[in-house]
């Protein structure tokens, strides 16, 4: 049953992302991307990562994709294809192959596949995903968290500097 659910979600995610990158119209791409986000959120739920699933939809689908859409509306979406690059198919294939090998090597050397976490299913059931996540993030991952706040500050200032003339 859970296997079946996973295959449905994975199939949806792959199909929708293929459609997303092959659409000529950026708004259609955005809609397919929305479906991708939802299916990935479903996969997160299956992995007991409910909080990540919620913010996948809340932040990626609810905020970042909206930003993309506004950008698409700012630029003229009628001009088909924003940039024309020569040999783009060759470039694309080479680049994706390199990244694929990189990801494989990283996964192998870091030995993440099959690594068991500290928290068991029972702990999740007792305290809930959000509470454990909060506890971990705000005690063991304190420095990355505070660095994130500085990154957000930089992002905010950057956006304003870019968008405002004076």
């Amino acid at each position, binding site marked *: 049953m859970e296997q079946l659910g996973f295959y449905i979600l994975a199939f949806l995610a792959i199909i929708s992302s293929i459609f997303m990158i092959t659409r000529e119209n950026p708004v259609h791409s955005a809609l397919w991307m929305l479906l991708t986000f939802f299916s990935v959120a479903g996969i997160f739920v299956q992995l007991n990562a*409910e909080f990540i699933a919620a913010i996948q939809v*809340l932040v990626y*689908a609810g905020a970042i994709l*909206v930003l993309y*859409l506004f950008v698409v509306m700012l630029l003229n979406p009628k001009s088909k294809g924003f940039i024309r690059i020569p040999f783009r198919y060759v470039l694309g294939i080479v680049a994706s192959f390199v990244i694929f090998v990189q990801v494989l090597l990283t996964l192998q050397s870091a030995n993440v596949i099959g690594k068991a976490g500290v928290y068991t299913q029972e702990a999740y059931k007792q305290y*809930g995903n959000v509470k454990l996540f909060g506890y971990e993030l705000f005690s063991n991952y304190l420095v990355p968290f505070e660095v994130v706040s500085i990154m957000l500050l930089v992002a905010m200032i950057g956006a304003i500097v870019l968008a405002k003339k004076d």
Partner: protein
Amino acid sequence: MLVELIFVVIKILVVITVLLLGVAYMTWLERKVIGHMQVRLGPTHVGWKGLLQPIADGLKLVAKEDIIPTMVDKPVYIIAPLLSLIPALSAFAVIPFTNATVNLFGTEYHLYITDVNIGLLYVLALSSVGTYGIIMSGWASNSKYALLGSLRSSAQVISYETAMGLSLIGPVLLAGTVSLKGITEAQANGFWFIVPQFVAFVVYLISAIAETNRAPFDLPEAETELVAGFHVEYSSMKFAMFFLAEYANMYVVSSIATIVFLGGWNGPFGPSFIWFILKIVALMFFYLWLRATLPRLRFDQLMTLGWKILIPIALVNVVVTSIVLYAIN
């Protein structure tokens, strides 16, 4: 397993039916209440006191010609109303409206559809996805009014979403959970969270009204300047879906306000379901009252209110709540 599955499907169908009826009769109530507030009668002809008016309206909308303009982007144009309606309906999957249980074949089942421990975040996530219906309808219609309306509307919705999220942090601090059932139970033996979190309640209520594009924040459909806003090119059932989604969203935000601030199903006596409904109806009446009372804001006033007033207040509320909470414990 199979019994459980069938029971879940039945619960879902019942909840959606009740919700759609609620939406239909909300339109009747709206016309009646605003009519009486403006010393008119409201609908009187169809049925006793006009009670069959929503049914007649629904049938009329189904039978209307479905005009799809030539310049539209057809697939997006058809998907957009669905993108509004589906999140609005689906949010009710996690709303705990009663604590009554029913015994089926020796196992106790609760009557609300489900409870997940990210309930509140789930509702927020779905309401943020509802923005797509607005953006997509405006873009797909390829009409200047629709596009302007949808850009304005989505800017308004995302501006107030921040204030809304921040205002909910205070009650979550008090309850220690984001499960909606957990938040309700945290208020069972003590104050409803409206008492310690009154500021948050006011911020939430204002941003909820803005989120659902209701008066006095109904700029996207400002009929005097934008004719009807993002759904100007829609007709027949597709138009009805935006209408349904708007009212269903009003029910969603009222339910969240009821659960998070007004104690949810908790009441001094009697069945829990009644209390939940009473609180929601009271909030909905407040919505109508506002519409009959207040004039529409200008767009710059709206943005100022959201970004310069509500967000700072909500942030201060979070900090103060957490310091007080720490001092007490």
